[in-house]
Every structure is written in structure tokens, then in C-alpha cells.
């Protein structure tokens, strides 16, 4: 067995996958967003409570592979208490740092989904949780090719 991706399934990540303290819903989130990785069906929803531009509380829900769900759990852990501007600057580097592993491009998509969902959530007006189905899309001008 090679050491290539030994760490991917190390216990810490499996803990986050099987029993994340951040999994669940908020009573009254200020913003929320949900999207999925259509290629594999990973689905993540993020709900956020904001206070003065800071993430006061945050929860995720969804289903998918270990990478996507552990990434969501770790992201929530790191994001709570942070300012919105800071979270908006996070990218591939930060996500891989949280996970503590290297990923090939295909799996990177799984890992990045939660961050993408969170950043969209933070960009939308408060108290108006969009699901991806209602969000404006430009990727089709065939009127009936909706979500």
C-alpha cells in the first residue's frame, strides 16, 4: 500500500464525517445556502448567524463523501468567530490546511464545495436564504433547462 493518500481517511477526518459537532441547523440563521457537486452528488447546506460582520454561529448539513463532509465540519470550526471579509479570502490553500491533506483535482472539488457554499451564503442579503434552485444562473439560456 502506498503512502499517497494514507492520511485522507485518518481517524480525525472520519470523526468529522461520522459525528461532527457542527452538523445540524440553526434556529434563525441570518443567511443560508445549499448546493451540490453535480458530478458526484455531494450536497452541503450551510447556515450562519452574523453579528457586526462576524460569524457568530454556523452549522452545516448534507451528505456525501468523507472529504466533502469533513471539509464542511472543519470549515465551520475554523469560521466561527471570524470576520466575513477574512472568510471570503479563503481558498484552496486554507481548505487543504484545515484538512491537513493533499488532494488530486477531482477530490479537490469535493473539498471545496463547503467553502463555495459558505462564501455564496455570505454574499447574499441577510434573512433571505437562497437555495441553489432559486439562485440566479447564467449557465443556460434555454428557458426550460432550469435546475
Amino acid at each position: 500500500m502506498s503512502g499517497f493518500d494514507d492520511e485522507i481517511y485518518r481517524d480525525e477526518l472520519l470523526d468529522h464525517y461520522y459525528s461532527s459537532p457542527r452538523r445540524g441547523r440553526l434556529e434563525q440563521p441570518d443567511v443560508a445556502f445549499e448546493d451540490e457537486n453535480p458530478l458526484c452528488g455531494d450536497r452541503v447546506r450551510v447556515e450562519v448567524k452574523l453579528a457586526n460582520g462576524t460569524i457568530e454561529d454556523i452549522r452545516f448539513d448534507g451528505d456525501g463523501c468523507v472529504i466533502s463532509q469533513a471539509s464542511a465540519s472543519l470549515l465551520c470550526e475554523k469560521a466561527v468567530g471570524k470576520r466575513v471579509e477574512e472568510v471570503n479570502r479563503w481558498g484552496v490553500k486554507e481548505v487543504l490546511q484545515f484538512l491537513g491533506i493533499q488532494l488530486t483535482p477531482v477530490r479537490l472539488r469535493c473539498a471545496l464545495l463547503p467553502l463555495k457554499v459558505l462564501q455564496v451564503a455570505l454574499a447574499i442579503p441577510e434573512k433571505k436564504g437562497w437555495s441553489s434552485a432559486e439562485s440566479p444562473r447564467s449557465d443556460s439560456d434555454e428557458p426550460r433547462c432550469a435546475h
Partner: protein
Amino acid sequence: MNERTTTPVRDTSELNQLEERVRRLRTDFPILAREVRPGVPLVYLDTAATSLKPVRVIEALAEHYRQRSANVHRGIYAIAEEATAAYEAAREKVARFINARTPEEVVFTRGTTESINLVALSWGRANLRAGDEVIVSELEHHANLVPWQQICRQTGATLRHLRLTEDGELDLDHFRQLLSERTKMVAVSGGSNVLGTIPPLHEIVRLAHEAGALVLVDGAQSVPHRGCDVQALGCDFLAFSGHKMCGPEGIGVLYGRRELLEAMPPLYTGGEMVKKVSLTEARWNDVPWKFEAGTPPVAMAVALGTAIDYLSEIGFSFIEAHEAAITRYAYERLQEVPGLRIWGPPADRRGAVVSFSIDGLHPHDVAQFVDRFGVAVRAGHHCAQPLHELLGLRATTRASFYFYNLAEEVDRLVEALQETVRKLVRRL
């Protein structure tokens, strides 16, 4: 839909007999000498996505560019004549392989997807009207579904969905109900890339023709494994890809009955597909060239011809016998994995494809974990989302086989899956 859980008695003597030849054939594939990572040999169980390439095919491609890299059809000098002859000889080989009446019934495309789109966009736009109906089955690959959705939307025709039985086979009673004088086209797969289902094509063609409808067969998963005699079958169109049958990417085939092809307008226009062009108008070339605008993938067509020679030498009787045996073996052994469910028809009524799910595991994690053991399987919806919705799943893990796979590779898969379950599944 039923998952299978019975475990019949295992008899591998037939498989053992066949494997002597499999071992010899494996030496034709350079990639099988490769280690995925140091010390980990490749166990390739993803032929349904794309097949491995034998050295003869790789060499045919390379040799074409070493010896007769020239554009076709118009060149009068020696290497251009050679390239043209090689390209048209490849077409003749394909025609003989599928028993087309003439090579003119063979259009070279990029692959199955382009072949089906060509029919949907060209034949469909010219022939479908509001009130007409197109029938596709619920197990179709997106390539044989989305183009029909689109053309029905554009023409006002209605897309009807042929239901599956509990076993994942086509429901012929439902088919009979769906068929009517409104039915203009029945587009159906020759083999499911997920369930392994092998639809009864002869019966489908017979019923469709009785109703006055045409039949397009998506042969992406059937032609590489069982071939196709288009005259015996009587289908009107057949689409398949080179890369799933030991050929390179970038080449595929649309077979169409000559009268149908002749009546179809071209889709892409430009060089080679015209007879005469003025500043304001153009007259089309004869079939099949009418559909081959621009420089075609000559080397890839030639290499597909070589792949057809290679498969013909092995013989479909061997390929089918071996696939039946290894599929049965895999089907049985996989059930040793705790929580594993196989989807689709029983082992003796399916192609060399086994898709499964494992309780508590996401297919992505399964595929990634078994990759540590060099085992290449695919995870996802395999471009058949509606079918997965029907199964109530977002994704499955799929193992698929060809004449170069060994029983011991199935063993490696099963061991890797058992290890995956041991390491990843936490019983709560």
C-alpha cells in the same frame, strides 16, 4: 428495484480454462505492465468508461504519422493517396464488422455522443413535429437522453420514457403500450453501462417497426462486447465509440440506413462535405462524406480499423464466454463484502458491468480507498442520473470487465473492498 443477495455455488473451472488465453492477451497491453504506485500493479476494472489499448493499435496510430501523415480525399501525391486509401479502408472494415450493406452507410464521428446528436439534430429537426413521440428507456446514458430532450423541446415532439422492471430490464409490456402511430423514433441502449442490462433488441426493433417507428441503438456498451449485425438486427441507426473497443479516442461511428442518411441534412458544413460552393450557396456531397465536414481524424479511423482486426482475431465467442464467466464470478464474490448490494439483473442476464453500493459508504470514498490497492473502479452516476434517481441513489461504484481481466483481479477488488469496509465503516 431488486438488489441481489443470493449466493449460488461457485464454479470457476470454466473461467480457469479461459484464463490461459487471457494471460497471453494481457501481454498485448503495455499499461498492464505498469505499477500505479511503486509496488502496486494496476487492476483495471473500468472498461465501461474506456478500454485499454493494445500495442498494435497504439502502433497503428504512431505508424500512420510516421509514414503517411497527409490529408485525405484531394491529394494526388503518393502519401496522400495512401492516407485516403487507409481512411476508406477503415470505413470498409467497420462496414464489414457491423455487416452494413455498403461502406457509405458508415459515417465517422468523434464518438457515440456525436453520432446520437447527429441523428437527433439532423434527422430529428427534419422529421419531428408536435404530436410525434420519441421513446427512450429509463436506463439510458445521458448521451442517449439529453439530445432527445432537446430536440423534442425544439420541435414540440413528446419524449416518452420506457419503464424498467424490478430487475432493471426493459418492461416490454409498457413498451407495447407506449408504441403508437405517433411514435417516430425509439432510441435504446444495446447495453446498460450501469446495470449491465442487455435489452432484447430484436424484439424492440420488431415491435417498433410494426408501429412504423425507427430504432436507434446506442451501441457504446454492446458493440465492443458482442458486436452487431445491423442487417440481422434491422436497426435503422447504430452509434458506437472507438475508445471503448480497444481503439483510440476521437473516433466513433454512426451507422445509418442509406436512404435515411441521404435524406438527412448535414449539421456541420465546410470543406469535404460539399460538392460545389459559390459565395451564396452550397451543394452537398454524397453520403457519408456529407456528414464529415473538415479534416477527419484519419489516424484514429485507421487505428479503429486495427482495433476491429484485433477484436475479430480474438473472436466474440471467446470474448462473450470469458465475460460471462468473469461477470458471474465477480457477481458472486462481491456478495462476500459486508453491506454490499448489486443493482440490476441477475448474473446470467447481464453484460460485463457490476454496479453496487455499500451500506454506510459513499462511492467516492470506496473508489479512492481501493485505488490504494491499484484497483481502478468508477464512482458516480456514470452519466445516468435519472436511473440513479430511480434507484434512490446519488451514485454507485462500478466494476466493469473485458477480455483482459483475470479472476485474481476480482479477488483483489473484493479484498480491497473488505479492507475499505473494515477501515471506513463505523457501526454506530
